[in-house]
């Protein structure tokens, strides 16, 4: 027993979640991020924590950390100068990418410039075929020329990515050995070691992103480790991963591609855990910050994983908690176009200069300003006393749009919100159509600074019945890191048909993956017994898309052909409503996830209400087209069992929840707010997406 600390460093703020295992008490803290000196905010935060809560660093047994340092290096293109080694005549792999440009209707749309300059790419002779067999030997003598090229172009590291190395890394490893021998200490990464999957562009770009940020992330983690020791924290530093798990900082230093999306992923992990706590199976987590609104789907308590998540302009192809940007953030700017039509975004005031009401130099009206104008924001201080809102300035800015539109300023503010919501609707619609889910079977869990403010509007438009606003929507990511499991993914391309003849091979592949997984777990978690989850990407032969199908280790070990085939038929039928018993089934790849669970805390419950909830005030706010007298509640005044009806505003220092007319609120034992959309409950609007 002891203290567990989770820290999440975002663009504007750094959040701390501190959990006392003995009492189940969860404390949180928000400090400004220090992009100029990453890591120093952690020190500042630790000092404040000791001061405010009397925390003794020596009592900390578990310290996890999520960071955007890797993402920022990619977005700002501040990684190292990397070289790339490919097969000869395939050197343009990064430039060609998958050909499609980002905006297909625009004649001047270009693919993002690769992170590696083409003249730092070197082709070598030697070739494997699709079975991994050598059909042309590696030209070792040519490597010397390549090494000269790496030196001449001033490369600080190199990624080796050869065709079909996912089948057989022998050429990649040989090249690596030759370079390491010739250039001791030079950073070398083999793409097939990063994530050995088929598709050369995807495998290469993933390794390149990892290599590009590696020295920066590694250096950052090293200094953070040192700083923590100085503050007296003896627990080893753990980092959160894109796949929602954690690993040691030591591993993070070499395997940084795994922690690129650490912050966003742990937010979803936090949301999933919180949802389970509240007994909610299907959740749509909604994280709205300054520039974007991001959504993740949690189905049956588990986040949805995918490959191909965006890192700035690039996609990274390792299994990650799937988070999709669906629309504008609180800082997105509203404008009226030359034809007099009101629009919102895509330009954003972000966190600097930020919304007009923040008084930090922003002049363009944002979604946040619209809420200030409507009287929903600004009824209580925001963001840990760091920001005082200038409502009059918001009114002036929105007022200019109102004048152009010939509408009252409050109506204009609400229209801004409605336009933003319709954009989010379109974004979520795309997501649910792609996955074929029904949003009405999901609860919305808003977090981030602006999530709870917009949640009711969005739930209404999607006909979602319930919203769960967690106790501390601002620190869900930090909390997620604190409860995340040690976890890693493993893959092996199989690409053979599922027949009696291949069952032995399938089991050999499974066994090989399992050995890899157990080795990893021993290094990360000692002798803890991992949970192993096996799946395969399968398809009917001739199809051009695969379906991830859960398999049992037992069925593979004992070669139960019909059970394995049936697992795929079932999955296919579930997704496409038919099965083809007569068709050949192809196993494209085998996947294994190894997990060692982190003990989950028991959160302390809050006091039970002894009398009805009492608003601290009543304010005038604009909701649903009219000025209304709206009850204002302080979140810290609410007790377990409290119930009240919308319209209402719930204020707390890291966010504001707007409760629209037609929504009812109840408070659960941990202080989460549950909003019920009465219109849906009463059976109106039956039809959804």
């Amino acid at each position, binding site marked *: 027993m002891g203290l567990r600390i989770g820290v999440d460093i975002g663009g504007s703020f750094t959040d701390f979640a501190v959990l006392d295992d003995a009492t189940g008490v969860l404390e949180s803290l928000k400090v400004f991020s220090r992009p100029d000196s990453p890591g120093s905010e952690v020190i500042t935060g630790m000092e404040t924590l000791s001061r405010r809560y009397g925390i003794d660093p020596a009592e900390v047994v578990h310290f996890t950390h999520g960071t955007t340092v890797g993402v920022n290096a990619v977005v700002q293109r501040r990684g190292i100068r990397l070289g790339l080694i490919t097969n000869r005549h395939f050197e*343009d792999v990064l430039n060609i990418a*998958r050909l499609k440009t980002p905006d*297909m209707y625009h004649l001047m749309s270009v693919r993002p410039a690769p992170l590696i300059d083409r003249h730092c790419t070197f082709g070598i002779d030697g070739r494997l075929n699709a079975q991994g067999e050598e059909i042309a030997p590696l030209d070792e003598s040519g490597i010397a020329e390549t090494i000269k090229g790496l030196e001449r172009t001033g490369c600080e590291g190199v990624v080796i990515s050869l065709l079909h190395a996912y089948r057989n890394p022998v050429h990649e490893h040989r090249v690596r050995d030759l370079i390491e021998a010739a250039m001791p200490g030079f950073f070398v990464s083999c793409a097939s070691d990063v994530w050995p999957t088929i598709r*050369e562009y995807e495998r290469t770009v993933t390794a390149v992103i990892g290599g590009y940020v590696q020295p920066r992330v590694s250096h950052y983690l090293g200094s953070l480790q040192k700083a923590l020791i100085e503050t007296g924290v003896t627990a080893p530093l753990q980092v959160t991963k894109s796949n929602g798990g954690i690993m040691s900082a030591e591993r993070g230093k070499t395997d940084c591609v795994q922690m690129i999306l650490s912050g966003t992923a742990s937010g979803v992990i936090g949301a999933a855990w919180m949802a389970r706590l509240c007994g909610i199976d299907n959740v749509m987590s909604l994280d709205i910050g300054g520039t974007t609104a991001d959504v993740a789907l949690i189905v049956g308590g588990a986040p949805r994983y995918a490959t191909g998540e965006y890192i700035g302009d690039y996609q990274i192809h390792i299994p990650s908690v799937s988070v999709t940007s669906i629309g504008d953030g609180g800082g997105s700017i509203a404008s009226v176009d030359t034809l007099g039509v009101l629009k*919102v975004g895509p330009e954003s005031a972000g966190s600097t200069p930020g919304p007009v009401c923040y008084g930090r130099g922003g002049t363009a009206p944002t979604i946040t300003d619209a809420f200030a104008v409507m009287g929903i924001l600004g009824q209580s201080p925001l963001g840990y006393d760091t920001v005082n809102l200038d409502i009059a300035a918001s009114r002036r800015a929105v007022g200019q749009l109102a004048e152009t539109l010939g*509408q009252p300023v409050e109506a204009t503010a609400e229209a801004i919100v409605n*336009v933003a919501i319709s954009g989010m609707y379109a974004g979520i*619609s795309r997501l649910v*159509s792609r996955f074929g889910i029904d949003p009405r079977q999901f609860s919305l869990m808003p977090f981030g600074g602006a999530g709870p403010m917009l949640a009711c509007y969005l739930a209404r438009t999607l006909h979602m019945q319930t919203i769960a606003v967690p106790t501390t929507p601002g620190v869900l990511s930090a909390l997620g890191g604190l409860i995340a499991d040690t976890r890693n993914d493993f893959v092996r391309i199989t690409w053979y048909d599922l027949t009696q003849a291949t069952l032995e091979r399938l089991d050999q592949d499974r066994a090989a993956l399992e050995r890899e997984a157990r080795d990893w777990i021993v290094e990360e978690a000692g002798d803890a017994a991992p949970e192993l989850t096996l799946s395969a990407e399968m398809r009917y032969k001739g199809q051009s898309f695969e379906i991830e199908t859960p398999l049992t280790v037992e069925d593979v070990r004992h070669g139960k052909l019909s059970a394995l085939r049936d697992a795929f038929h079932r999955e296919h039928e579930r997704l496409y409503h038919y099965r083809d018993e007569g068709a050949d089934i192809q196993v494209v790849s085998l996947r294994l996830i190894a997990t060692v669970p982190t003990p989950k805390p028991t959160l302390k419950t809050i006091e039970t209400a002894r009398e009805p909830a009492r608003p601290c005030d009543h304010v005038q706010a604009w909701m649903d087209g009219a000025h209304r007298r709206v009850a204002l509640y302080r979140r810290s005044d609410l007790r377990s069992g409290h119930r009240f009806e919308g319209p209402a505003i719930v204020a707390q220092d890291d966010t504001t929840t707007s409760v629209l007319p037609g929504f009812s609120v109840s408070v659960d034992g941990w202080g989460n707010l549950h909003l019920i959309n009465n219109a849906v409950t009463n059976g109106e609007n039956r039809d959804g997406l």
Partner: protein
Amino acid sequence: MAFDNTVVQIFANYCVAAAESMAYTLVRTAHSTFIKETEDFSCALITPEGLAFASPRTLGATWYIGLDYGPVLSRIEDYRPGDIAMTNDPYSGSVATHTPDIVMWKPVFYQGMLICFVGGHIHNTDMGGAVPASLSRTLTEIEQEGIRFPPVKIVREGVLDESLLDIMAANVRVPKQNRGDLMAQIAMLHNGEKRVLEIIERFGTADFCTGMDALLDYAERQARQVIATVPDGDYFFAEYADEDSVAGKPMRLALNLQIRGEEAILDYTGSDPQLASSLNMPTGGMVRHALALVGYHYVLYTLQDDILLNAGLDRPVRCVLPEGSVVNAVAPAAVGMRSLTCKLTHVLTFGAFSRAIPERLPACAAAGLAIMSVKTMDSDGRTLMASLGPVGGGAGGMPFGDGSDGSGANVAFLRNTPVEINEAEVPILMHRYCLVPDSGGPGRYRGGLGLCMEFQVFSPGTMVTARNRDRTHFASWGILGGQAGATARFTRNPEADHAEALGNTDIVHCQPGDVIRLVGCGAGGYGDPLDRLSEEVLRDVRCGYVSPERARTDYGVVLDHDRVSEEKTQALRRSMRDQSRVLPDAPFAYGPYRDAFETRWTRERYAALTDILASLPVAWRFFIKHQLFDGLAARYDKGEVVEGAAVIHELFEQLMKRYPALSPQRDSA
């Protein structure tokens, strides 16, 4: 909710979301690779009059914005809830534009009232006919291109007409796949209907109906605003495909773009007569046919990228599509490969607009993209077929940067197939998949490079298809001093003594061990290459995109051991500037092949040709065009040509004598 300016964007977002939802339903459930890999499908919400008022922005083919369903909607009498109608006949309403495209539409009823339609098309892999996949430029009549369904109800009040499916099954090569795709298409329409009903419930019937018009009106106002920024004037442009048929003559498309205030006329007069091959576009002469306006939509979007993609964009424009020409073929002309011609209309339209506003548009995209596919055998003797991916070239140099390499502009929606997937799926070995050095048109901003694909096949009876091969001769133009891109080269066994130039061949029968190499063409450059910064030229040389020789001859940049020799560069550039010649059709640079061609086939002579052919019955036009081409070539061979168009009339007089049947026909035409 009244439709004021605060609601337009909201309504648009809901409607586009519905259209995108339809698209995702299709992609998730369809079978054929055309849908999954090349996204050759469309879907839309359609007004009762047949105008598309919302389409997906991120999925599907880019060609069908504003596709007018009007002519087919009216072919069905008495719509009832649950009905779905379909057609794939290019000559029934010009909505399906070749036989593999099955177009379907479904009325949406709310409280017993027909409010709107949802519709869309998908490209089926095969509809029967003379050749697998139903498409070949060798075909000459629509009857060879597979079974055709005139507009007919495939679902009546929710009940599928199995007899129609049986007829289709009896006529196509892989009935199971057609059926699967048809079901996916029906699912897409059901989804669309559901989503539209939801929007109707949200906004109310009256506002929904007002909203449809509001979206069309808004797009129209946007389009008018953009057109108004283009100076008034007549802007003529011509484009050529290398061949109008197998080993044929060049095919010319002409466009006279007339900008008048907020409106425009796209007059295609001067385009070639309809062909005895399948490159014809079946537009029915509709003044706003989607296929004739694709280039216009690209230009609008490029000039203002927040336009709504719907039929309202087309209201300020009108096309003139002469009957019996390649842009308005009459039955029974074959139309299967109309995509080659349609793609040429894109760059044709870009050219016409570039003549008006070269400072706001890029140089010519590479065009001439071929879709490579292979049919071969595995070691067990099983036949395998795979689409290997598109091989073309990049986007034109832009007013502020280089064009994208390898692909871009009007083919930017296509994705490739990874080398590793190709090799895992079919027994071929890729030798090269890379960009083509020195292929981008030189310019202040370089044109995008071509893409090269080279592979070896190993089984007897292997057949390689390169659909829509073009640009072996005619290059993609540069502008404002920018030069044309390099042309394409298609070769069998390029490194062997017996290397064979394949030209624009689109079907190659291979022997085991054959190596096939397609070097895609490059895009045109933008602005004077002598103004390109020498360090940018150096970067291209270091990357291997420009050779040191071409750095010197095209850009006037002299390199010395991986460095720019500034002094020599300045001197060379000075002398090159002194020698620079005036282009025949400034600001365009077409490349040597077209320059030479147009000294023979001048605009004047083309005008004569167009007049003559227009006076002939449709059936004679293609034949006479070829005769006149041969006749003029013979005159040149004998050195007997004089300037001017008289020679064309003279040649035609001779033809009338040679073919007496022509004269009476001509009188009656």
